[in-house]
């Protein structure tokens, strides 16, 4: 990850301009971007419906939410709203996945690409104080965190970025209509992509099993992960809540919770680029991204495939190659 250019304000202005123009010209009914949350440490999804409200939109390294999650609900049923949307690099990959399966209607979509230089790991940052963090600011390579007493701590940006931002290969959107600001340089020498995964893989089976049980023991089955997931699109008809077939029971315990998460994982295999939206939505902080990244690591090794990169590519589990380099026996 290259050091930050710190041109957040420029990009923010550009997003606002693009949204304003689109709204004024009637190209979109509403624009989905990021806006300020309940305090200055939170940035949340924001829906803007008139050009005079675009100034509510913000762009900074707290804008973690993958807004394509809002598309999965209604896009397949035309003729309905025309939607404008801002996407970061990883968000665009989920959009590409949806486009590959023709699950969103391109005709009704206006996409503003946002080059991204890494998103702050708000969860880690908020733990540097025991009491409430009320403000997070990023300037150059420093993250300043302020708590409710007004105390401020300076953190190294590099250490408090989301894990997958540190080894991000695609900081620029893979699909967009207009790009807000200039593309950032794509890193040449890759930070080790799968460090955490390899550490986990090296553990003995019993230990992995224990860690899994420990992680899923605390799942409360609120379904935030699947509802926040941009590529998990069954929405109101999730098989995890069905009685027939009964893959997952209503009982909440580590086993059922893990089974539920497996349903999520296998159902998004080949579409999920590990954007981390599920992980960040989890109210009890289960490190879901590890599972999804592991899956992507295996897909990469199996088929040299990365989800959401190429619009023309067929979804990897909806096709096959007779020469697939496995299962020949």
């Amino acid at each position, binding site marked *: 990850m290259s050091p930050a250019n710190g041109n957040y304000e420029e990009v923010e202005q550009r997003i606002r301009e693009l949204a304003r123009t689109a709204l004024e010209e009637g190209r979109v009914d509403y624009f989905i971007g990021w806006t300020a949350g309940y305090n200055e440490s939170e940035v949340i999804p924001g829906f803007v419906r008139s050009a005079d409200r675009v100034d509510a939109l913000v762009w900074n390294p707290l804008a973690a939410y993958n807004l394509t999650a809002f598309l999965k609900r209604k896009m397949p049923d035309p003729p309905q709203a025309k939607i404008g949307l801002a996407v970061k690099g990883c968000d665009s990959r989920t959009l590409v996945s949806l486009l590959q399966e023709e699950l969103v209607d391109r005709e009704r979509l206006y996409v503003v690409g946002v080059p991204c230089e890494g998103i702050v790991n708000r969860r880690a940052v908020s733990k540097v104080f025991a009491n409430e963090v009320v403000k997070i600011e990023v300037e150059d390579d420093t993250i300043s965190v302020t708590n409710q007493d007004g105390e401020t701590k300076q953190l190294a940006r590099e250490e408090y970025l989301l894990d997958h931002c540190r080894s991000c290969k695609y900081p620029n959107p893979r699909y967009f209509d207009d790009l807000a600001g200039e593309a950032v340089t794509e890193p040449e020498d890759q930070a080790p992509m799968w460090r955490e995964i390899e550490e*986990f*893989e090296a553990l003995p*089976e*019993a*230990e*992995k*099993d*224990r*860690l*899994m*049980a420990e992680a*899923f023991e605390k799942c409360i089955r609120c379904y935030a992960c699947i509802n926040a997931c941009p590529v998990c699109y069954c929405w109101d008809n999730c098989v995890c809540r069905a009685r027939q077939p009964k*893959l997952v029971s209503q009982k909440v315990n*580590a*086993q*059922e919770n*893990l*089974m539920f998460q*497996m*349903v999520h*994982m*296998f159902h998004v*295999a080949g579409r999920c680029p590990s954007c981390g939206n599920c992980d960040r939505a989890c109210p009890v902080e289960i490190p879901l991204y590890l*599972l999804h990244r*592991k*899956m992507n690591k*295996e*897909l990469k*090794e*199996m*088929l040299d495939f990365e989800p959401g990169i190429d619009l023309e590519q067929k979804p*990897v*589990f909806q096709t*096959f*190659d*007779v020469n*697939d380099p*496995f*299962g*020949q*026996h």
Partner: protein
Amino acid sequence: MAQATETATGTTASWDGEGRVKVVGILCNWCSYAGADGAGTARLRQPFDFRIVRVPCTGRIDPLHILKAFEKGADGVLVSGCHPGDCHYAEGNYYARRKLELLERMLPQLGFEPERFKYTWVSASEAQRWQQVVTEFIKGVEKLGPREGRAL
């Protein structure tokens, strides 16, 4: 009604399954199920602590079916279908192969020993091969013993 018999590994266990492993086989109707049938007809000795689920095609199998089997107490799951290229429905097993391969690679992440899951291809005429595959697989599972108190 306990009736002492030999397990694949030669240890004795009672008919009611106590002290034994539970192994589920998901077999395609056209090749592997016929192969297993053939092995039976030929009176080839097969381990019987093996519960077969017959499916029309391996393409029907969702990795979640396998996980569900484990969750409900299976100690091992063996999937077998037609050889690539010989699928009764032309290409079902090619799709299956990708899914099953991903599952096989993901299972260790969940704390499964690799010996607990295998997917393979056995044709209707390969009764001998079937005997060998299933015996070896169950031997592997028996060596590990039952999965108890596991996360999934």
